[in-house]
């Protein structure tokens, strides 16, 4: 079969396929379509995630979360550095103690 013949055959098949679907009867809404939609809407409205308060809280949570995380990080760094400072102060006392002890020892030995 030549490429031209093949192409014509495919064109024909394509046309047939689309025609087959196009000739389907028009879809008609079922009984009480409006009621069923409104019932589903009411149902979705009453679902917990659609409660206005929860929706607001959810929205706020996404805004508050990064701020809270940043604050937490800031205060952890601050307390860590404070801790470091305290440690330095302790070391200082210890060192002073040692120097005092050593001078006291030196004096007593003399």
């Amino acid at each position: 079969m030549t490429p031209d013949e093949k192409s014509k055959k495919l064109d024909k098949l394509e046309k047939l396929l689309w025609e087959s679907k196009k000739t389907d009867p028009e879809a008609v809404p079922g009984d009480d379509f409006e009621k069923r939609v409104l019932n589903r809407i009411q149902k979705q409205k009453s679902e917990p995630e659609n409660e206005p308060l929860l929706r607001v809280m959810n929205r706020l949570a996404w805004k508050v979360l990064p701020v809270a995380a940043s604050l937490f990080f800031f205060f952890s760094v601050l307390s860590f550095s404070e801790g470091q400072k305290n440690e330095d102060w302790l070391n200082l006392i210890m060192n002073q103690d040692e120097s005092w002890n050593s001078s006291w020892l030196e004096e007593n030995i003399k």
Partner: protein
Amino acid sequence: MTAVQVLSMKHFSAVLTRGPAMGERRREALGDSNIFKDEELVQKTLKGNDSAFEELIRRHKRYVMAIVSHYSRDAQETDDMAQEVFIKAYFSLKTFKFKAPFQHWLSRIASFTAMDHLRKRTRQKEDLFSDLRPECYDWLESVLSAGLNPLSDSRQKKELEDLLETALSVLSAEDQFLMRAAGLEGCSIQELSQRTGWSGALIKVRLFRARKKMRKYLERVLNAEKKKI
């Protein structure tokens, strides 16, 4: 057709589609609902009047069903999709800007709902050739060479519909949507662009590639059939 004729037709169709009891109830809530434009009904819905939305559903359900039916496999799926369109419309009514007609806005929601359904379906895709029944191979060649009209035979029409569905399932959900909209709904590039928000050039390229891919698949089907014979 004059505006008066259009209005009277609208009124006539509204009378036909509603039951007397329901009509009475709605008239109590809305007065004579036909005097309201779609935009007014949208505003009423936004103020919490669900009867106004019920009227909007009544006016546009056939239009929405006509759109989504091209993307569904059966009547039940069409009904579900149409319901989903109205539910999505209800919950995103705040985003309606009153610039374009309500029906255009609804058609966009219907298009995206259809695309979502096609996406779900492509995720469940199985082996393509296994979907074709052996009988399909037997008569396809004869139909194409003899120039018969298989659409008069309901069984053969069903076979062709199945083959179209299988050939379309080769494509991505977005390409399937475009092909169906162009092939079944007869949408122009401009209409498709309005519905999807994609540029005309992008739609043209996607349609060209999708058609090429689909034809390649159909060629494989025809070759497979030939080997069998």
